[in-house]
């Protein structure tokens, strides 16, 4: 073989040569760079978005062979086993096993549980109603995805869960119901969560009067340590008995919270909050980003998902606010309806938005702790909604 033939063959096997074979690969690389910019410079959920964008970049570099969607198609069709994927797959295929099995979202939930103080929710159990009302976005988006855009029910359920404003829940459900749509759904969920301070306030101001927004709420009652320790155990028993499909997510959330509250497992609580959470976040974000392979991502459906995701977020905010307004009326003006919008999960961002809007209307207003109740109730509510959708459409 001559030196020219060798150089020619080397050129033809280079990524640059293969890049020219399909323009969509270039588009995806540019899109990954835009997402990296949003994460690095604009600081949009950088912990997740940087990993997702880099996974997207790696998977669309031709010839890298880091992720093989066709292997996963064969696995879903029952023609391959996980051992075959470990043997034949690339690095990101191996990391993706944790997504497919539901391992990473559950472990992330354990960390979230260890970081979450359910005290405001225990102090004001009515907050749970606001957390439930804010799940309206999930089911309204599900309905629109089927009725307007003609998606299959399992895909529509995965799109709807974006309205839960809870990344791990969205990834957990989508990896089981519609793995082909994992990347656009995860990106939409995390992008809109980062944009909550822009998405929610206009709706909050539109649906509430100045008088309602100015409402000052009474100090929350104190919560004992015993109540905080009993809470995760009771929630696990009752909710998992009611809806067993939600056990992996809710069980891990409550286990993490029990580590935090019992006061005997500080080392474990510290590990799940920091080391474990960070490791799993790296694996989860890069492998989810890797599923954004150009020929599956650049479709009209991705655009529909982005649109439906925004609608789901807005309707979730509307649901929480409307019930908040009802509670304002029924309580004789003691409950500020702004805390209802925090029912969309996105802890603690949505609660901070309620606090900011409340203080904007009345500078002596402190709604943060009151809004944390619906906020953490929203985490439980979206997990229950995901469990319901999995039980119905999971086959």
């Amino acid at each position, binding site marked *: 073989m001559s030196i020219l033939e060798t150089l020619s063959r080397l050129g033809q096997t280079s990524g640059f040569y293969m890049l020219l074979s399909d323009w969509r690969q270039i588009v995806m690389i540019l899109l990954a760079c835009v997402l990296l910019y949003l994460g690095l410079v604009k600081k949009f959920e950088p*912990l997740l978005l940087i990993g997702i964008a880099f996974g997207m970049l790696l998977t669309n570099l031709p010839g890298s062979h880091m992720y093989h969607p066709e292997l996963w198609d064969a696995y879903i069709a029952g023609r391959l086993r996980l051992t075959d994927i470990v043997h034949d797959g690339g690095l990101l295929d191996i990391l993706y096993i944790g997504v497919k099995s539901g391992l990473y979202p559950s472990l992330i939930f354990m960390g979230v549980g260890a970081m979450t103080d359910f005290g405001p929710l225990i102090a004001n159990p009515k907050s749970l109603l606001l957390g439930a009302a804010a799940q309206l976005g999930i089911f309204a988006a599900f309905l629109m995805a089927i009725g307007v855009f003609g998606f299959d029910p399992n895909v529509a359920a995965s799109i709807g869960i974006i309205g839960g404003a*809870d*990344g791990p829940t969205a990834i957990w459900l989508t990896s089981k119901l519609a793995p082909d749509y994992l990347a656009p759904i995860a990106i939409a969920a995390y992008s809109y969560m980062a944009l909550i301070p822009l998405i929610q306030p206009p709706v909050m101001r539109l649906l509430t009067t100045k008088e309602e927004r100015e409402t000052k709420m009474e100090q929350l009652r104190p919560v004992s340590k015993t109540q905080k320790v009993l809470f995760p155990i009771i929630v696990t028993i*009752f*909710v998992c008995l*009611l809806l067993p499909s939600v056990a992996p997510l809710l069980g891990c959330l409550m286990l993490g919270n029990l580590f935090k509250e019992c006061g005997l497992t500080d080392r474990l609580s510290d590990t799940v*909050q920091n080391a474990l959470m960070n490791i799993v976040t790296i694996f989860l974000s890069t492998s989810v980003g890797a599923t954004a392979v150009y020929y599956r991502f650049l479709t009209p459906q991705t655009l529909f998902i982005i649109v439906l995701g925004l609608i789901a977020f807005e309707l979730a905010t509307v649901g929480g606010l409307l019930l908040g307004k009802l509670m304002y009326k029924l309580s004789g003006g003691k409950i500020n309806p702004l805390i209802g919008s925090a029912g969309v*999960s996105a802890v603690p961002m949505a609660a901070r938005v309620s606090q900011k809007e409340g203080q904007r209307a009345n500078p002596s207003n402190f709604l943060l702790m009151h809004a944390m109740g619906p906020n953490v109730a929203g985490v439980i509510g979206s997990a229950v909604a995901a469990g319901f959708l999995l039980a119905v459409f999971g086959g």
Partner: protein
Amino acid sequence: MGFSDALLYSLAGMLVVFFALVLLMVIIKVMIAVGDRRQKQTAPTPAEALEPAAAPAPVPAPGSAGELKLYDTDPRTAAMLMAIVADELQLPLNELRFLSIREVKENDPT
């Protein structure tokens, strides 16, 4: 799946979410009621309450409203936060009552 079926599933989903969270609400309320009842039972009887205490309770400093609880916050940061709040509200610090100060963790990925 048709629109009517999807609508039924959506309504059923909302009902299940509300049912689960209302159930939780009731259970938490029962838990709180039981806790309060036990606390009342273990509280001193009026006769016991009339007995002189072994040692007098520490008298709060003038203008103070009890003890401030700090969670993951050092006293220096707490003092700065209280000063900032007082400044923002344009109120003297001794007219405000701080019950507790807790650090909100920033690295929550949800």
